[in-house]
């Protein structure tokens, strides 16, 4: 088990009403599952209220970095004490 920090940014921070949380997790999959359990329904409810319907789990419609690297680029499932997940919506407009 490892104690990790999850930091929320951008609209997710506003909608969740917090900028960070800590999780006691086994690995990346466990962290994502806990993230979804704890924050997914609240985030989707806020989004629905704002007229935005998004399917799937937080990890499906968010950018997630592990210690500053896209989680998509990380092959290992392992997490260690003190790791940080950064979670925010993709903003691609210009």
């Amino acid at each position, binding site marked *: 088990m490892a104690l990790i920090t999850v930091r929320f*940014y*951008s*609209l997710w*921070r*506003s909608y969740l009403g917090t900028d960070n949380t800590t999780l006691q997790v086994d690995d990346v999959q466990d962290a994502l599952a806990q993230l979804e359990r704890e924050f997914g329904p609240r985030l989707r409810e806020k989004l629905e209220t*704002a*007229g*935005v319907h*998004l399917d799937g789990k937080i990890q499906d419609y968010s*950018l997630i*970095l592990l*210690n*500053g*690297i*896209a*989680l*998509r*680029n990380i092959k290992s499932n392992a997490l260690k004490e003190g790791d940080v997940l*950064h979670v*925010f*919506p*993709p*903003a*691609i*407009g*210009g």
Partner: protein
Amino acid sequence: MKSNTADKEIRQFVAESAESHVAPDGKAHLVISLKTTASIVNSKGAPAKEVEIAALKQGIIPCRYLRNIGTVGLDGQIKLLQSTVAVAGAGGLGSTVIELLARQGIGHLIIIDNDCFAEENLNRQIMSTEENFGQYKVIAAAKRVKQVNSATTVTTFQERLTRDNGQSLLSGARVVVDGLDNLSSRMVVEQICRQLAIPYVYASIGGFNGQIMTIFPEDVGLSSLYGSSSDMMPEQGIETRIGNPPATVAMIAALQVQEAVKIIAGVGTPIRNKIVMVDARECTIDRIELGK
């Protein structure tokens, strides 16, 4: 090519035309007015930017840059006038970037966009007007730059930047600034900038939020954010649901211009190997250090 005699003549003419100007802090500066610059351009056939550079090299400040010098210095303003900046995309971010770069006194702008103005652009694309729907954005941008700063020359490319034409379009730029609205084009620009060893000022927005990062050739880049595999990258961002409001565009475009100016003038610290996330709704700015 101009002869040394012609250069000397311009320098002499500028020196003779300089006037004294007292700044708000009580300090006196030698300045040259826009009218005098235009007169030298007309009589000597020299480009306006060469006249302005000749003035700055003698410590004479073109009036239009008086409020720039405190941040970039005389040498910095000369470097800006001697530089080319490419703006990829002339829509929301791009058009504000172009306006500010011209006012800053960038010597040459390369503007690339294949799109025309439509009504939904009016909320944020500062070069769109109720009169120019259907006009190519690069044409409106070039016209605007000419109105704002006759010393800034412009090359326009009315085409989409691609892997095939990118090197030829961006070649010669000191900095490339992102005015794009999709991830795949940004990936192309990043790759070409790495090949050409040009710093790339990436930015994107959605709703009240924007993000910005300057990518030098040796730096981490967009793959740290979005992943390396194109089939795993998001097609659309949150902006397709919550929009692109004008103030967010202006806020992030202003930061992009500041990055370009810092790089060229050699002042301050560019946003490298980190993403800066600006949230205007909560008025917060966060930095995330990126890894490879």
